[in-house]
């Protein structure tokens, strides 16, 4: 067990953190509304090679994995960057397995943008496709066929929505490309949707963390009834509950990413869990932070509403959260799954030997500044 990032992951995180803080401040986020897409920012993201970092090296990518993408997604979430990196990266990995170089090369080069429909197509339309309004290519499942749609005209008619997502209904033209058919196509599509979920979980962790900080900043500056708002016990307790949930959501999101990378049997259920838990955590945190702002939280002038709307909308585009819990239960407990199929447990090959709990006097507890997004293990 090692909950630290590797040196490379740490370096990536620091680079991206600086990048998003600099390139996607709230002014940029606001300017990109309502479409939710900043073409210039996307070009820069593409030039950094981010959409292709998890594409295998023999396809021209950087050969990294879901943990690295989750790092990028968390930081994207923190800054609400108006770029469909999660969609592009997910669709890119799927296309790397099912499409040829002619499709893949412009994606890896950042010249074209691909996205993924989260719901199988019904008849001739893929509905509510994230980034569908700005993508050149859309991958969608229809029955057992994995389809690739070219979108010659973009953006298509974007649909106004709560989360300022470049959402569109994408018609399926007659001249579609069938990437694959049958169980392999279906499995590939579901793996991609799963990866979209775990990356969105990471983005929601970023949203939640930043929403908490915004709330903290506010209550530590404003006074009411002669005292700092931050000194009210009900506010403190809610902030503490949210900070706790965010730590849990972050650990779970990175566990899900790790499980995806090392192909644990529990990877599907962990992706579902991390998505559900991060969704609840982000919405509750943003909602309560907004409420702590009093009337100001309701004004467009304050940033917290940007987080509140996305915390609700980004996961909702994948469907009803409550149904997700029921699906998870079946995923976990329908036969023939082993009853305690959890990562690092039985029927997993044992990990490398790790030292036991120490009995030597440890050092003092390590303090973490609240405004520093730490590694997942560091809370």
């Amino acid at each position, binding site marked *: 067990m090692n909950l630290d990032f590797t040196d490379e992951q740490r370096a990536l995180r620091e680079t991206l953190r600086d990048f998003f803080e600099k390139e996607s401040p709230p002014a940029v986020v606001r300017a990109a509304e309502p479409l939710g897409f900043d073409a210039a920012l996307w070009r820069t993201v593409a030039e950094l090679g981010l959409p292709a970092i998890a594409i295998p090296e023999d396809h021209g990518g950087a050969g990294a994995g879901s943990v690295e993408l989750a790092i990028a997604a968390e930081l994207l979430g923190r800054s609400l960057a108006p770029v469909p990196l999660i969609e592009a990266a997910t669709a890119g990995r799927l296309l790397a397995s099912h499409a040829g170089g002619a499709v893949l090369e412009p994606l890896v080069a950042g010249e074209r943008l691909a996205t993924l429909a*989260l*719901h*199988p197509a*019904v008849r001739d339309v893929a*509905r*509510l496709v994230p980034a569908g309004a700005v993508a050149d290519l859309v991958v969608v499942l229809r029955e057992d066929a994995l389809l690739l749609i070219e979108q010659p005209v973009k953006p298509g*008619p974007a*649909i*106004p*929505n*709560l*989360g300022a*997502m470049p*959402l569109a*209904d994408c018609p399926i033209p007659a001249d579609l490309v069938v990437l694959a058919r049958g169980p392999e196509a279906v499995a590939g599509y579901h793996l991609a949707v799963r990866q979209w979920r775990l990356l969105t979980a990471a983005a929601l962790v970023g949203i939640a963390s930043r929403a908490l900080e915004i709330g903290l900043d506010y209550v530590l500056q*404003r*006074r*009411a*009834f*002669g*005292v700092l708002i931050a*000194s*009210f*016990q*009900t506010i403190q307790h809610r902030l503490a509950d949210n900070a706790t949930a965010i730590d849990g959501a972050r650990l779970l999101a990175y566990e899900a990413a790790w499980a995806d990378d090392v192909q644990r049997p529990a990877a599907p259920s962990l992706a579902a869990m991390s998505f559900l838990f991060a969704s609840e955590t982000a*919405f509750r945190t943003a*909602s309560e932070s*907004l*409420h702590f702002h*009093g*009337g*100001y*939280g*309701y*004004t*467009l*002038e304050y940033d917290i*509403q940007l987080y*509140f*709307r996305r915390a*609700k*909308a980004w996961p*909702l*585009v*994948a*469907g*009803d*959260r*409550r*149904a997700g819990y*029921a699906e998870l239960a079946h995923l976990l407990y329908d036969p023939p799954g082993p009853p305690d199929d959890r990562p690092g447990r039985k029927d997993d090959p044992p990990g490398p030997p790790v030292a036991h709990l120490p009995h030597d006097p440890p050092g003092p507890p390590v303090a973490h500044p609240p405004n520093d997004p730490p590694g997942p293990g560091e809370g």
Partner: protein
Amino acid sequence: MDFWESDDLAAHRDAARAWADANVRPEWAAEQVRTGCHQTPELHARLAGDGILGAGWPPEYGGTDVDLDFARAVFDELARRGVEADGWSTTSMVAHTILQVATEEQKHAYIPAVLRGEMLIALGYSEPDSGSDVAAAKTTAVRVPSDGTGAPPGGTGAGGTGASGTGASGDWVINGQKMFTSTAQLASHVFVLARTNPDVPKHKGLTLFLVPTASEGYACQPIYTLGGQVTNATFYAGVRVPDRARIGGVDEGWSVMKVALVYERGFGSSTSLEQTLARDLAAWARAARRPNGTAVFDDPLTAERIGRIAVDEEVTRVMSLRLGWLAQRGELPQIEGSMRKLFWTETIQRHYSDALDILGADGVLAPGAAAASGAPAGGEFEHDFRAAVVTTVYGGASEILREIIAERRLGLPRSRRA
């Protein structure tokens, strides 16, 4: 014991619908969404002209013989057509307060003008540094000798009707800023809470004034909100008003506020608070189909949430009934009103969040999306989800209401540090 509603509107629904058909232009709803101003002057004039504003008010102050239940049915019908009358809500609250605390002369000066639709009153309580802590207002009112030029209290609209003794006690000069002065963009007056004595504990040095928006030194700036409404910041730079603009005693503003806040928390409001989310969701869910062809309503997870919303709506309704019943008995139900507002607003926020979840991916679709992608109810659920956010803040934040209940109903000691 019986739970028959006193305001049975059924008998008046057809008439109200006919009135609305004849008087409400279809484009007004969209216009309110576009402008973010939840008040339509032409409509207000018609409501006044047909005596609907004056329904239920004492005739000596301009009350009409229009049936109050018909008037309520009209406001229900307006709500159903998406036409809000927020400006009338605040005006009506202030008029109720005037009826309770003002001098006979002031009642005659203001209430008839209100009921004729000539005065529209916005609330000027909150300030940039005081929202829930409304008694911390920093806006000042200082008494000065009358300069004899003070406008009559009714401002441009209300004229000097029945007012006498102008300037007898001097004028007041108001300086400060108010936040969230909703409908000020159309209002003739703002009901301003001002500090008249800085040397006493904060609750004891406040006074309320009815300030004409035509006054020199007054300014209004828009504030855009998450729910689409446009509210305002209003500014008072040496605004001069005569003493008869003062509502209630000097330094007695806090007890006036207590009356006003009971009305703000929904008591005695003539506009509708009927909740129909459970029914609207059920209608959608019975028509909507899953990919496998079954109705969404047949999913127990959907039905369960709708059932839960229906329960909370009924609890809210019966709490509202209680307010009406206490009113019949001549009480001013501050605790019961706080309970109703607390319960109603905290639950509707959960309800709208659940509603969007029930809609699934379609839940994100905003008004305007309908044409493109079939947003449920034209995106109204999504809009209402955003608009519900503010309900736990305005008119007494939930924390304040809980404090009122804890201290006055349960007898608990004050929890806040002074």
